[in-house]
């Protein structure tokens, strides 16, 4: 392997100064920059809209804080473990506070939190797949075939050059070149983001960028190996290019869609409609019970009673029943008898969603496993792990959320539960004291799940003490393995191919 350094240096220089590389670089930079600017503008609009909405919610919520202990942990910027206010409706002396569903149980309609959306969508994965991958083939597929065509290959191998070192030098030089393109593209994208005044460079953003970068390199190196094999076999550059393009179309455009369609057909998941119908049945039962309860306990005053307010997902902890400021007293004992019923129904709803999510997650995992080499899949799963609100994120995470809910429900059921004070006549100060105790209690237990003014990505593992981000070692290991196998195959193939 004494020639590898020489071969590598010259191969690198040869490609670096070629018109193909210059075109590749200019196109990559311009396309990614344009894409980033468009994405950023959309992102900014979403953030502004979101901030103004949440500020209004916060303002409204403050006015009604006295009515509910549960209101204290209102998270105006969604925190997946807490409840946050959906709307406050004042009807005469009656005030209904409806609670939005817990974000993690929003399977049909993702909450429009741009901070969460950013993690999932704001990356250049798709662009890398579409642009850099096609350029990899454009650059590499002809590298050996053109040398064969121009007889340079014969001249090289008229010397005592090993085929392995020649192949490796082609591979490494192409990889270095494409990594340079990636670094420049990343640098420019980062610059565009910074110049737009967005502070998205949290720890997770950096981590995700590293992940994106790493897997992009591995993905590109797979394409390089494939392109080199094509180039090895082709006697004409245009045939190599054509074969490379066909393989690119198959790998990037056809295969992922084909796999998804097959899995969707083979591994059936209940439709949204089916789950909704089932949940509606639970809720009908619950409404009936609440009506019964209200008729029995508050027969004379229609304005006082327990109300089940329907949010976007009915039944999910939307127990709302408030009188106005002067009529806070509710029959503690009576309500305590109803709570288990409510909680039971809620558990059934949660369990339905859980089941639905599990199936979706299994389906998604199956797709990810088959398309493990695609950075898109890696980022989907990594992003989900970061954001913690996607069906494909780790089921363990949802189990912990579920446990948290159960603990909370037990707490409400317990003798000194603040949930009961919800229905008792307490002064504002007392409620605050009780809430403070409750918060401290929860802080000890859950590492402060409340009082986050804004959902920051790096808050996620802290508030619930859950490690939401796990580096996709498995996917990366598979990528590395696939690279090694392809490289070994390429070298073997080149050994068996005629130079002429």
């Amino acid at each position, binding site marked *: 392997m004494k020639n590898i350094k020489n071969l590598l240096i010259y191969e690198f220089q*040869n490609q670096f100064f070629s018109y193909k590389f210059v075109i590749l670089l200019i196109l990559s930079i311009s396309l990614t920059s344009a894409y980033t600017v468009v994405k950023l503008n959309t992102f900014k609009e979403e953030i502004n809209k979101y901030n103004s909405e949440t500020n209004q919610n916060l303002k409204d919520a403050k006015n009604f804080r006295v009515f509910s202990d549960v209101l204290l942990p209102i998270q105006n910027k969604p925190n997946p473990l807490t409840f946050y206010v959906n709307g406050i409706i004042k009807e005469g002396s009656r005030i209904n506070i409806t609670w939005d569903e817990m974000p993690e149980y929003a399977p049909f309609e993702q909450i429009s939190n741009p901070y969460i959306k950013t993690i999932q969508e704001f990356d250049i994965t798709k662009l890398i797949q579409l642009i850099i991958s096609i350029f990899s083939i454009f650059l590499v597929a002809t590298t050996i075939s053109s040398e064969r065509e121009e*007889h*340079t290959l014969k*001249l*090289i191998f008229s*010397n*005592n*050059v090993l085929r392995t070192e020649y192949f490796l030098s082609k591979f490494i030089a192409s990889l270095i070149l494409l990594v340079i393109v990636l670094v420049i593209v990343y640098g420019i994208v980062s610059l565009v983001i910074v110049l737009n005044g967005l502070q998205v460079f949290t720890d997770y953003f950096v981590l995700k960028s590293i992940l994106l970068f790493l897997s992009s390199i591995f993905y590109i190196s797979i394409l390089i190996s494939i392109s080199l094999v094509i180039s090895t076999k082709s006697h004409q550059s245009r045939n190599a290019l054509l074969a490379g393009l066909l393989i690119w179309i198959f790998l990037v455009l056809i295969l992922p869609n084909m796999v998804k369609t097959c899995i969707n057909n083979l591994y059936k998941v209940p439709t949204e409609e089916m789950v909704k119908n089932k949940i509606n049945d639970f809720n009908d039962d619950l409404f009936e019970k609440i009506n019964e309860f209200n008729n029995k306990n508050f027969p004379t005053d229609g304005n006082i009673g327990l109300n089940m307010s329907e949010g976007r997902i009915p039944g999910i902890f939307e127990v709302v029943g408030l009188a106005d400021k002067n009529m806070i007293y509710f029959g503690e004992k009576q309500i305590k008898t109803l709570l288990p019923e409510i909680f039971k129904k809620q558990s059934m709803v949660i369990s339905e969603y859980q089941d639905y999510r599990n199936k979706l997650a299994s389906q998604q995992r199956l797709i990810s496993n088959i398309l493990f080499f695609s950075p898109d899949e890696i980022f989907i799963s990594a992003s989900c792990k970061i954001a913690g609100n996607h069906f494909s994120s780790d089921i363990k995470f949802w189990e912990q959320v579920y446990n948290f809910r159960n603990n909370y429900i037990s707490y409400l059921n317990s003798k000194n539960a603040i949930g009961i004070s919800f229905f008792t006549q307490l002064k504002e100060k007392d409620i605050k004291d009780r809430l403070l105790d409750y918060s401290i209690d929860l802080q000890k237990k859950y590492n402060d799940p409340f009082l986050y003014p804004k959902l920051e990505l790096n808050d996620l593992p802290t508030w619930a003490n859950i490690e939401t981000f796990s580096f996709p070692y498995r996917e990366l290991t598979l990528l590395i393995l696939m690279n090694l196998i392809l490289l070994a195959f390429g070298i073997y193939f080149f050994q068996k191919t005629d130079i002429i």
Partner: protein
Amino acid sequence: MLEAINLSKRYEDGNLALDALNLNIEEGEIFCLLGANGAGKTTTINLFLNFIEPTNGTAKINNIDVTQDPLEAKKFVSYVSENVMLYSNFTARQNLDFFAKLGGKTNLTKDDYYMVFRRVGLQEDAFERKLKKFSKGMRQKVGLSIAIIKDATNILLDEPTSGLDPKAATEFMNILKELQIQKKSILMCTHDIFRAKELADRVGIIKEGRLVMVKN
């Protein structure tokens, strides 16, 4: 010294490109292999360079079987092809530097390269010019420089004067004569009978893979 013993090659499509070639080119000898297109000339060179495996027989360079130890054998041979494009993004000197290093010459200076260029008659202003705008004759001169700088004892040439103008071809031949004086064994495949007669110590005529005649 170049030697072919019963060297045969039958391609996968059944075509017998070379049929039991026996050849021995001594030190300081120029052997011209004459033949029409498809006669087996290039196949002979490809076998000597181990680009293809022989179906039968042996090709030897300095008594080293090229099939048995191709890397060792290639240390002793230089090659000039019919129409080598080389690396058009590099200058003539960079191309020469690259191939010189592949040929094991790692300590050469710019002056050494320039000296070889002057020897093959490449004009001075072309030394540091990129090959993009080189004519075929200029490229061939760079190709010959590559063969010369390796300083191997054997040289294989595959239609080296094809497409060259008469002046360039004559210059090329003169350089080969100089190499002969340096005791190089030269095998040149060509279909130019006049050049062959003018240059060669021996001329072999190959037809349909068989060496049908050898003349001094």
